């Protein structure tokens, strides 16, 4: 009996050791390498063995880079909020409907995931570019004479990212809504609460973990996204991810690229910590 338990315990540790080892090798070590590269001095694009904080001061003192950092965080928060605001009603309907078409409706809501993000982003480009469908429509209707310059813009990047990440928000919110006992909502209404009050006092607090999770998921992916800002953005709408790509892959200045990577990572952790803290406070 004892021997069998010990064997089972060993197997459990072994099973846990495999993903833990994977994470150590492919996540923790690269992060450590990123951290070390971010504090190395760069001489004409070649990192040299000399510690410096210069990379961070360069990034945090130039308006251009500071703007890109703030823009990225703004995009992340806006996309996260949009995903929740747009995704919640849809997730609510999809979980509460008794229609026999429910599985089909869920599949339709999640169907954007079947197309590559590049394809979906170029779809927005087709709509918003100078000779795109939106300008064409407005000109045909006689509302504008010359095409509007809708691209590149931060607003369109937000639209593209919110569209790409909405299904993830819906999935997270549906999981939370499925965990809510409908009898609690019925009980609230039987005690006189209206639909709005029931939602605000019962449903929303009980699904706060899904709201926070969905927001964090959308925020985290949005601030690290490269393809959408690269396609729908331009020189005046740089984000941290596009700058990192530029530093690492074309300017070959890995010290500055790593420093920007560290700032991106730190921003993610900061928002994660703040949101978790806010979640705990509201729960208590």
């Amino acid at each position, binding site marked *: 009996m004892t021997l069998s338990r010990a064997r089972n315990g060993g*197997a459990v540790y*072994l099973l846990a050791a*495999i993903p833990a080892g994977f994470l150590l090798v492919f996540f923790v070590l690269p992060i450590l390498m990123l951290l070390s590269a971010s504090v190395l001095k760069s001489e*004409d*694009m*070649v990192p040299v063995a000399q510690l410096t904080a210069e990379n961070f001061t360069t990034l945090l003192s*130039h*308006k*251009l880079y500071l*703007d890109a950092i703030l823009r990225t965080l703004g995009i992340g928060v806006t996309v996260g909020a949009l995903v929740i605001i747009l995704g919640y009603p849809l997730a609510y309907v999809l979980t509460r409907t008794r229609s026999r078409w429910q599985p089909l409706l869920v599949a339709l809501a999640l169907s954007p995931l079947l197309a590559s993000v590049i394809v979906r982003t170029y779809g927005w480009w087709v709509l918003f570019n*100078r*000779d795109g469908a939106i300008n064409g429509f407005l000109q045909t209707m006689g509302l504008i004479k010359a*095409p509007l*310059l809708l*691209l*590149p813009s931060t607003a369109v990047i937000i639209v593209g990212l919110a569209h790409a990440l909405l299904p993830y928000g819906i999935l997270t919110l549906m999981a939370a809504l499925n965990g809510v006992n409908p009898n609690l909502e019925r009980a609230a209404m039987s005690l006189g609460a209206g639909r709005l009050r029931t939602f605000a006092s019962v449903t929303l607090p009980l699904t706060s973990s899904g709201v926070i999770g969905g927001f964090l998921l959308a925020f985290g992916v949005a601030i690290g996204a490269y393809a959408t800002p*690269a396609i729908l953005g*331009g*020189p*005046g709408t*740089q984000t941290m991810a596009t700058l990192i790509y*530029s530093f*690492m*892959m*074309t*300017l*070959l*200045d*890995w010290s*500055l690229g790593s420093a920007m990577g560290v700032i991106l990572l730190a921003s993610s952790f900061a928002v994660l910590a703040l949101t978790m803290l806010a979640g705990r406070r509201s729960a208590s």
Partner: protein
Amino acid sequence: MLKAVTLAAAGSVAAPYVISARAADTLVVSAYGGEYQDVFMKSVIEPFEKKFGVQVTYDESGGAAQTYAKIRAARGAPGFDVAAELTAPEAILGAREKMLELLSEQQVPNLRYVWAKSLAAIPPVGVVTYYQYMALLWNTKKIDKPTSWAAYWTPETLHKPEVKGHLLGHDPGTNLLEVYALIMAAKLKGGGVQDMSGAWAALQDQKPWLGAVLQMSAQAAPYFENDEVWLTPYWSGRSGYYVAKGYPLGFTIPQEGTIGLADVSAIPVGAANKKLAIEFLNFRLDPDVQRAFCLGYFASPARPDITDWPASFVETQITTQAKMDALDLPDSAVLSKQRNAWVMKWQEIMAG
């Protein structure tokens, strides 16, 4: 269970060594994709395979800097034997970081036939396999043939207002083309690589005339297709390709001259099959291979001793010593040092 896990772990640890232990008759070449790949396969890869009885694996890559980033990240052993599409700045960096194999004329006999300029342009860690230059490309249906870089850099003085929004810009952070274009703008105002102030003033004035700014040259294709771009600096190779495809485009070298781009092939220090890689570099410089590739890709040859080119080719390509002498090849070491600062300045102006 334990056995399976052990086997899987052993397999994953051994995998890189199994992969690197390639057959001696297999060569991995990293080069561009798209239309370039078709030309490269037919004019270089297939004849090489036939002549040496070997197999070449084509590793489709991004731009020169991306390819070099892979070499650097893998400490000189990126999994390919030949980096077929580097440029002078990467070759200089590769020599400094000792990431590229040193080459001699003894190893690559065809090096004795290349343009003298090629040997001066890069350290001996690569071979200049062909040249392109920055052309001024225009839409023949929309505007007249431009004769000066001023048509691009001071559009308000030369064009009607309807041209506004139809100039195409390029991101100097991702495309060397814009760096070269900015140097030409500085030259127009009496400056150059050492004094770029004129370029920034020109960029500020030109900015409202730009319809789009692209990260990579290849992204321009849809803009050419729908006549959205009327004027842009563009690489001569792709320019020739689009003209041959029937687009209403023309490309020219304006009266102030232009800047050339030496395309470099090199071997990473950790390449698995260096011997065959060296043969490949020498083969790329063979006259027949040069002719087939350059005609297919609208590129200028790496050696001056090939004659009897078609007249239309001679008209647009660098085939004579006089033309090569006129081609400006900026000091890549200076470019490498200055590029980050220039990119930052460009971004500040464009974001403002």
